[in-house]
């Protein structure tokens, strides 16, 4: 049986509460994993492992949180993501809203792309 958006959100909420040690009410769709919920690099792997278990899916960490695009000089110049880089990110992250990031393109702002809603949408695409 397909899970509703609400069911997915509830399970994602549980995963994030366990992985990040935050309270239920902090997990809003707009909450940013790093800036608002204090996620660190290892937490992304923890989240991936817990999502796999919660939803019975297989996830490659780079599918949800691509880490090699921003290290590639082809995609980043002077700390800003290039047009080619943006196209690559949009291609790799169909589950993320990149519009706000597109305005600054500063690699230091990239973590803000990962919100609770991004995770929910990612899971939904994996469940389809």
């Amino acid at each position: 049986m397909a899970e509703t958006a609400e069911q997915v959100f509830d399970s994602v909420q549980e995963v994030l509460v366990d992985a990040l040690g935050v309270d239920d009410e902090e997990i809003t769709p707009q909450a940013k994993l790093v800036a608002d919920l204090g996620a660190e690099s290892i937490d992304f792997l923890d989240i991936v492992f817990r999502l796999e278990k919660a939803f019975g899916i297989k996830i490659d960490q780079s599918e949800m949180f691509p880490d090699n695009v921003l290290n590639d000089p082809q995609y980043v110049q002077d700390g800003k993501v290039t047009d080619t880089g943006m196209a690559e990110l949009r291609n790799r992250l169909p589950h993320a809203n990149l519009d706000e990031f597109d305005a600054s393109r500063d690699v230091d702002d990239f973590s803000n792309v990962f919100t609770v809603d991004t995770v929910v949408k990612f899971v939904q695409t994996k469940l389809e």
Partner: protein
Amino acid sequence: MRWIWIDRILELEKAKRCVAIKNVSLAEDVLHDHFAATDRYPKTPVMPNTLIIEGMAQTAGILVGHANDFAEKVILAKISKARFTAAAYPGHCLRYTASIVRIDRTGASTTGTVERIDPATHESVPLAQIELMFSHIDRSRTNLAFPEHNFVFTDQLIDLLRQSGFAPAPGSTPAPGAIPTR
């Protein structure tokens, strides 16, 4: 300096399970400060919970390292959960059982239990539940460069494996796949 908080490995099942024991002894200096006598209380030597977590990190870390024949630098990255329900005193034996929940190229998560065994009665009491995350640091997202040599699995841990009967004969170099399960 010795920073080995397990004494012997009893079981090592590749990429699945590792069981280790540690005997808590008054010969360990740390117990004399934890807790030292105060004006109100006499000296109370208790095995520090932080070091019990370290013992689990070593048990689970060996399990995670062994899964890839010690090719990866396995670093404790996160204590996901550590819940203690009893304390260990000098003379007790701690039994660590670690299992891999998930492992991939970037790291692993483990779960484990610690029991306190009283050698006088052989009674076993659940002492802790500990969940850990390990990072294969060369593949981590931090993009930092680390030394080429594997500074995690040094002679200390490899010697422990050998003394427990899991490593190659003395003098031979631990090669990928060379460490058999008992």
